[in-house]
């Protein structure tokens, strides 16, 4: 008997969220990492308010990128190790439903907290007062892209013993467009220039990866569980 796609999606999503909440370290560690990386910069480049203001968008986004990367392994690794992944692939629902549910869970667990915490870090870095809305919007549109593209990388490397370093080599180049347009939007906002063009491109990236990543992830998972 086949479940409707929506039921299958929500069942898997609920399962992943329950697991994540019972394993809180997994949620907290990437956020702590995010905060620590961001707070290292004033110590590294000096506390001059002007310098910080200039580098703030880049720093926040690069830190968000790295902490997403750190949390990516969890997306499929545990499931791979205990055999749940192959069971999930054998469930009577198309693979893309499974993949989308898992990526959504990952974003809710890692992307959303980043967005909530980002404005506070903006204050630490003396982010320009006009940039906060752009920061939030760019993160809101951009972090799902990070989860989607990252999932392709994890799916390819989940079966490997030493996948960690390889994962960053595969995934980070793909993150470049998001980084450029997101920081561009925040910069433009700080100069009181319109930034909806930047956001539109991030939105295009989001829809593009949303349509294509599930298929890439699906076939990559089939290779990895082989």
């Amino acid at each position, binding site marked *: 008997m*086949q479940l409707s*796609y929506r039921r299958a999606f929500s069942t898997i999503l609920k399962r992943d969220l329950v697991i994540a909440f019972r394993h809180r370290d997994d949620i907290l560690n990437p956020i702590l990492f995010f905060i620590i990386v961001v707070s290292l910069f004033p110590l590294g480049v000096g506390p001059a308010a002007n310098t910080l203001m200039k580098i703030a968008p880049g720093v926040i986004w690069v830190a968000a990128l790295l902490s997403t990367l750190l949390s990516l392994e969890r997306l499929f690794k545990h499931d791979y190790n205990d055999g749940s992944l192959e069971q999930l692939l054998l469930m009577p629902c*198309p693979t*893309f439903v499974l993949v989308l549910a898992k990526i959504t869970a990952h974003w809710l667990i890692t992307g959303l907290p980043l967005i909530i915490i980002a404005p506070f870090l903006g204050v630490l870095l003396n982010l320009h007062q006009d940039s906060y809305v752009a920061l939030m919007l760019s993160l809101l549109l951009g972090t799902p892209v990070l989860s989607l593209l990252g999932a392709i990388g994890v799916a390819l490397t989940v079966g490997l013993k030493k996948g960690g370093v390889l994962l960053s080599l595969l995934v980070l180049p793909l993150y470049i467009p998001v980084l450029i347009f997101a920081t*561009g939007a925040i910069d*433009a906002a700080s*100069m*009181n*220039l*319109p*930034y*909806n*063009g*930047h956001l*539109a*491109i991030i*939105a*295009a990236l989001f*829809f*593009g990866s*949303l*349509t*294509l990543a599930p298929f890439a992830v699906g076939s990559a998972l089939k290779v990895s569980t082989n």
Partner: protein
Amino acid sequence: MNPRRKKRLAIVSSVLIGAAAVAGFSLYALNENFDLFFTPTEVVNGKADSGIMPVVGQRIRVGGMVVVGSVKRDSESLKVAFKLKDSGSETITIKYEKILPDLFREGQGIVAQGILTSNDTLEASEVLAKHDEEYMPKEIADAMGKEHKKPTY
């Protein structure tokens, strides 16, 4: 509906919707002007289509041709100042304090990146010579009067 057809329908429709969304947002973005690249005329008068003008203190990139006869070098330091123009009438002054690239010469197209210190002066942190895509020996170039190439900005 049998599961196979249901799946195919789901895939085809989601790909179509996805492609439409990507195309829509990209087209919207292309109509938005979000370039921080200005020509001298645009620095002074604002961009022709959107009227966006750089503000003093903003970090921008300006591209144009070095006005012939405008290069003033300081005899004791590396300081150099020159005027930049494009096909329009306005010129702006670029100040720079590093070694200029070999291709830098009067009439040459350059891109300067730096901070706008007044509405027609740029303190450049970087000056890069932009060479064109034409390759030819010197004799032919001379014959064609290539030295004064019209600006392409």
